[in-house]
């Protein structure tokens, strides 16, 4: 729902990196987005399309890589991904409930740019 504001940040960051790297045109913007961030990919692409007009990012494709929520067991070190609607309370390996978040599933990261 809040794709517009976030895509504006994406555009700013993409242009900043492009300027620093002598970029002529941005062809693709690759985002890493948490599984639980609530992103709607089509909205992200559409909004970016509007705001990127007349910049070197005009026409760039938005590629979204989903990042799952990951937990690590503080007892045995085993890691596991949380499946949506199936939050685990205990480690599948050793049964401990002493878990910590590795990735929250709510990240929005500009991972990389494919440029000319």
């Amino acid at each position, binding site marked *: 729902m809040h794709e517009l504001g976030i895509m504006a940040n994406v555009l700013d*960051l993409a242009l900043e990196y492009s300027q620093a790297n002598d970029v002529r045109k941005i062809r693709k913007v690759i985002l890493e987005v948490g599984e639980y961030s609530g992103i709607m990919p089509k909205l992200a692409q559409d909004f970016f399309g509007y705001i990127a007009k007349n910049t070197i990012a005009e026409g760039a494709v938005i590629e979204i890589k989903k990042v799952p929520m990951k937990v690590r067991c503080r007892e045995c070190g085993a890691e596991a991904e949380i499946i949506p609607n199936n939050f685990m309370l205990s480690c599948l390996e050793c049964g401990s409930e002493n878990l910590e978040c590795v990735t929250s599933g709510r990240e929005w990261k500009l991972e990389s*740019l494919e440029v000319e």
Partner: protein
Amino acid sequence: MDPVRIIEVKESVLGDNNKKAEELRASLKKDKTFLVNLMSSPGSGKTSTILRTIEHLRDEFKIGILEADIDSAVDAEKIQAVDIPVVQLHTGGMCHLDAGMTETGLNELNAPAYDLVFLENIGNLVCPAEFDTGAVCNMMILSVPEGDDKPLKYPLMFSTTDVLLVNKIDYLQLSDFDMEAMKKRVYNLNPSIQIFEVSAKTGEGFGAWAEWLRIEIRKWLT
């Protein structure tokens, strides 16, 4: 056509609000002000819960209130009626508060003058969960008439809060609300959340809730 190359960025694009929220929390610690971000659906009892909590804590702590609504001063007027300082924010259609708006409100309230500030967020179970307001404690209310399945339908809200008040327990006799089922669903999402069963109407349960809050505030103020 120039050859294609990849530029690695690997930076969060949520940076601004999260950074602002951390800065705000640090200044609240320095100013010794405990800010609670109170969230829920419309009508589940945020304002009446604040009023009951004020009754329990006003003799020990200096309390100020930030009311946030799309429009009207309905809630702020209720707070004013009990002689507690209040600032009413109008978001003009925004569905949630962020750290920037919260900071503006706190400045208008002169937050460092208070030990405890409640930020009554917009009535909305969706958007407020996504934005860190800089609060020390995230609190939500679920009221009995809303149903015990809300943790299944709004997992983000239930998983990002520190404390949940189940309000309107005076309605339990009239409803199918399954308290144990609801708690199990919440603990599945958020094993360390504190849950209190209350009725802002009758005052039941507020002693235990106020005691928990009292301890948290004292920890923050030292």
